[in-house]
């Protein structure tokens, strides 16, 4: 019993990692540019298909990660330049416009790749599993996902808090008008951050494809999970992503163990809706300085 529970908690860690991986791109964009990217799930999907193409050409996940980052970042650039930059001041409408982008991406990918499920394999190095504690052996690939999640969060932190670019981003985030007056090109910052966030979504697609299924309609579920994660964790503070992810990931796996998968998901959703009403801006909500 305890052995099974330990396994379950460990599984929860990997589920948390998956949530963090899929949500971090969205959190960066939402936190800085104030745009809810409803096409986030489809960005992940494009990343996964990029990995599939790389796989067909003989590359593995390690090759796919940078390629997917670049491909989806460029896609993000196109979307930002073509659509979003006109409507930064109307966040509710970016929601609709990016929803439209999502639909278009799904159709275009289906026209290119066909409607059937696509194959993406895991690299041979990460194929086996290792026996840690608990009842179940732990797959190497899930350990790899945990590492990727930590690296993605660390890279984002480094970029925002330790670089010149990050300083500007934080300035724009605090006070857009004043930053503009001080000579920061706020439009360019928005663009760069949108590209970066999109690229992270691309990585998510590339690393998640080998344990999940790849189809043109896969995006929606990831998008939903990502919204829940960042809304629960709160925007504006990057700690919100791992916190939200941890609560949802562990909560869902433990509840699924206690009851079943469906009820687990249901209870977690209900918990989120209640939690948001207690902490309207998420657990790590951004407190504006007066």
């Amino acid at each position, binding site marked *: 019993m305890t052995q099974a529970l330990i396994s379950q908690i460990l599984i929860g860690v990997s589920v948390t990692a998956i949530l963090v991986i899929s949500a971090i791109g969205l959190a960066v964009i939402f936190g800085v540019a104030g745009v809810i990217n409803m096409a986030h799930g489809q960005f992940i999907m494009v990343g996964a298909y990029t990995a599939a193409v790389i796989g067909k050409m003989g590359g593995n996940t390690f090759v796919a990660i940078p390629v997917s980052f670049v491909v989806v970042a460029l896609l993000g650039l196109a979307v930002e330049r073509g659509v979003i930059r006109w409507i930064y001041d109307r*966040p509710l409408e970016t*929601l609709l416009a990016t929803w*439209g982008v999502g639909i278009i991406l799904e159709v275009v990918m289906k026209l290119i790749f066909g409607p059937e499920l696509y194959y993406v394999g895991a690299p041979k190095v990460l194929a086996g599993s290792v026996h840690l504690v608990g009842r179940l052996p732990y797959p190497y690939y899930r350990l790899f996902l945990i590492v990727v999640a930590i690296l993605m969060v660390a890279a984002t932190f480094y970029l925002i808090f330790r670089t010149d670019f990050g300083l500007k981003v934080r300035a724009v985030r605090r006070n857009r008008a004043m930053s503009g007056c001080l000579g920061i090109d706020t439009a360019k910052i928005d663009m760069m951050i949108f590209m970066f966030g999109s690229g992270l979504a691309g990585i998510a697609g590339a690393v998640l494809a080998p344990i999940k299924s790849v189809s043109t309609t896969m995006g929606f579920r990831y998008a939903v999970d990502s919204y829940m994660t960042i809304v629960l964790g709160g925007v504006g503070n990057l700690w919100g992503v791992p916190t939200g992810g941890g609560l949802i990931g562990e909560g869902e796996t433990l509840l699924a163990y206690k009851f079943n998968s469906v009820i687990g998901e249901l209870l977690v959703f209900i918990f*989120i809706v209640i939690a948001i009403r207690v902490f*309207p801006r998420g657990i790590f909500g951004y407190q504006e*300085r007066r």
Partner: protein
Amino acid sequence: MLLLGAAVVAVIGGFPVVAGTDSYILLLLGKFLCYAIFALSIDLIWGFTGILSLGQAVYFGIGAYFVALSLKINYALDHPTRYGNKFPDFMEWNGLKALPHFMEPLVSTPFAVACALIVPTALAFIFGVITFKRHIYGVYCAVITLAESLILQEFIIEYQAYTGGFNGITDYSNYLGIPFLWFMLAVTIAFFLIARVLTHSRIGTVLKSIRDNDLRAQFMGYNVANYRIFVFCVSAFMSAAAGAMYAAWVGIISYLDTGPVFSVEGVIWTAVGGRATLIGPFLGAFLVKGLEFLLSGVLAAFWQLLVGLLFIFVVLVMPDGIVGSIAHWLRRHRKGTLTQLREEQDLLAHDREHDWQPAGVPRSGEESV
């Protein structure tokens, strides 16, 4: 104009008399009326008050499910199911042996209709109080309502013994026919008039001021939260009524009728037709759904592409929708002189600056509350 309006009502009302009741266009006509009411309800909260709900389908769906359940239970009483029992077949294959006791009141259809209207409105009231009293609005409100919508979907799928689950509820005697079409037409007109009165009264003006700048509205002494809750409930009521009629008319409903995709569709009908206008949602619903019906077969996958482009086009190029754009154009031509035109444009530009301010997302220092 009045004649034209009467003529149109006559066209819809008279259509089945001419074409017969077996036409599938009759089916579509009734469906579109329900969609139009749904879009109108979204217009009330989004167009006039500035609340974007991605969970409006929750109220539509609950209304629809109450009516469908009641009709299904009654149908099963008269026509034994394929298993030979007198309760709905989806209960049988989920292992129930009889109609559960808490569902017995639904045998009475009037009671079910009352539930279909009251329960969603009450739910909207509760959600409204805990959302708006806590100052959740803007993007957050959109995401929370999205979550609520997903919860309801999961709930319906999980408790399939009582809801039909993934398969939805079908195979019951629906009200497809001339009298019910007329009834729906009457309800549509009534809702249109209610919305008209509401938006052109003092309340409507307050709502618009809340949409444009809720902070100022609050300073003026209006209780912003209460106004939002009120309009949210009215809107939920309309959605629920549309859902109830939809279930009775179409004869098949499923969890998709409660989902976020349907809500977003409603938003886009409103946006295409023209938000903050009363004609817009009707025009939008009929146009988009009508085109979808005509073209989705011919264009197959490309239809979805067209829908995606439509989203972007409406947001970028025509934020006021068809009706709004025509109204602007007319106004411009009536005004005539150049100075007047310029004044008008200045006003519009001014509006644009303050319209649709990012609410809920702190973007700049001046927004700190």
